[in-house]
């Protein structure tokens, strides 16, 4: 049963990440490849706030949200002026720089050794020590984040994001500040992902930089793209499918070492085939055109 709760936690975390990344990729049309860096910023910031500054878990979530959004603004201001391939390249560059900071700033992050012994978070006086409790809490977190993205998308600001995505010049001619709209979407996406990252740190109890690599960022992008970008269903479906897929390989009795590579072959091919034959993904709305 513990295994089922574990899967529940992982699916919830990735649903939260996918829905917040969807604000950037799906609703704003920005293919950002540094989401794992924000996930990592969230994990490290909340852990350091709890362990070194002795904040409560709830307060650290707020701090993480603010900190990650501010870092996203610093990254977004230069990157968002670039278009298409160059925006993707800039976010790739920032992903590598942030990974390098997590890896090399040993005084703060303990470098490649990571931070062990993270205490289980306490929420409303309940210690989230058992997998069942953690699953419930992370599901609630995913639901709050999902609900929040839904509110944003349905608000006038959501329509503005889609307008800037579909025709930047037309939006600008109506007096809309496209840079501000994109920057806001980028910052919100980063902040929400960081919250999921904080829950990841509290669950894993140990974090090190290797969980926040370029490949992890590409995996997050694949979740949104394979599931389908531009609506609520798509990214959620993508998270469920791509997180549970490797577990299916486990039941087929495929050895662990091979399964890791096989899983990546499968999702790489899925990405290619969806782009060739169905750019909207399994259940998405936006086809990157």
């Amino acid at each position, binding site marked *: 049963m513990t295994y089922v709760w574990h899967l529940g936690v992982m699916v919830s975390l990735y649903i939260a990440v996918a829905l917040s990344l969807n604000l950037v990729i799906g609703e704003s*049309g920005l*293919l950002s490849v540094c989401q794992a860096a924000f996930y990592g910023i969230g994990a490290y910031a909340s852990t350091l706030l709890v362990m070194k500054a002795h904040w409560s878990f709830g307060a650290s979530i707020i701090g993480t949200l603010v900190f990650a959004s501010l870092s996203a603004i610093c990254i977004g201001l*230069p*990157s968002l*002026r*670039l278009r*298409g*391939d*160059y925006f*993707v*390249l*800039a976010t*790739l*560059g*920032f992903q*590598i*720089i942030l990974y*390098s*900071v997590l*890896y*090399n700033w040993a005084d703060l992050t303990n470098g490649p050794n990571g931070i062990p012994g993270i205490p289980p978070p306490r929420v409303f006086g309940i210690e989230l020590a058992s997998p069942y409790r953690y699953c419930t809490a992370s599901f609630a977190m995913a639901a709050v984040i999902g609900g929040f993205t839904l509110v944003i998308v349905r608000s006038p600001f959501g329509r503005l994001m889609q307008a800037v995505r579909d025709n930047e010049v037309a939006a600008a001619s109506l007096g809309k500040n496209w840079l501000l709209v994109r920057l806001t979407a980028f910052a919100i996406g980063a902040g929400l992902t960081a919250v999921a990252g904080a829950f990841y740190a509290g669950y894993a109890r140990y974090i090190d930089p290797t969980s926040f690599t*370029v*490949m992890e960022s*590409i995996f997050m*992008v*694949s979740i949104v*793209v394979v599931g389908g970008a531009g609506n609520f269903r798509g990214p959620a479906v993508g998270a469920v499918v791509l997180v549970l897929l490797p577990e299916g390989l486990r039941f087929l009795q495929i050895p662990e*070492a*091979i399964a890791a*590579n*096989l899983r*990546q*072959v499968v*999702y*790489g*091919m*899925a*990405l*290619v085939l969806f*782009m*060739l034959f169905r*750019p909207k993904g399994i259940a998405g709305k936006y086809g*990157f*055109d």
Partner: protein
Amino acid sequence: MLVQLIANGLANACLTALMATGFALIYNTTRIFHLAHGSVYVVAAYAYYAAAQYLHWPQFVAVTFAVAVGTFVGCAIELLAYSPLYRKQASTTIYLLTSFGLYIALINTVALLFGNEVRVFPTTQQSAVSLGPVLLTGIQLLEVATSIVVLAPLMILLRKSNWGRLIRAVRDNPTLASTTGVNLASVRRFVFAAGSALAGVAAVLAVLDVGADPQSGLPVLLIAIVAVIVGGIGSFGGPILGSMIVALLQSIAIWQISPKWSQAITFGILILFMIFRPTGLLGIRRRIEEVIE
């Protein structure tokens, strides 16, 4: 110390230049941000490793085989993935995502066949040669010699030959080129073949120098892309200059700051260039040339 670092850097720059020129050849002509170029490199590296280590083919045959496999994979990607997208007039985002997918699928297929660990090539003699104040290994000299032998004729061909003129015409304006009777599909196939062959050459040299690693594709390609941007998008000689500059800056960073920050500094340079000098170093000159022509 610094001179030695610079010499090592320039030897590395030769590998980067091979990758960067291949990428630029493809990007300038087709506007496809071909990240799967990194997987062509990985596949060619393991083709060479398998031919030389497992099959014990003679050196010359193994190198030819590796370059041929690289060329084949590059052309297969163009024919099976990019061409259909081109016919659908897909957006650049779709090309990029396809490229990401191909990269992941290919390098992990290689990892399934050969394992995830680095395969070091037992080189027969790692003899060092001293040239004045610097000490270079035989393989580093081979890297420099090979890249000159490969890149110099390519640059001349791109300037002088008929094929070079066609490629430059497609680079400048694909629609106009096709209305004057240029077969776009065959030019695209040609640049994919040539670019992938360059990646194959770089891969063989890298296997001899540091060994084969399935995860090395993206890092190697990204440094090459930095060199392309620094050198100037649109220029064919720019990436070579860019590779040298990136290597020099990396050497200085290693010397003055610390080796562990060299990656962060490289990508910092990339972002600075994209914002403040998006045309790169040779980008502007190309425009003047166009005016003169």
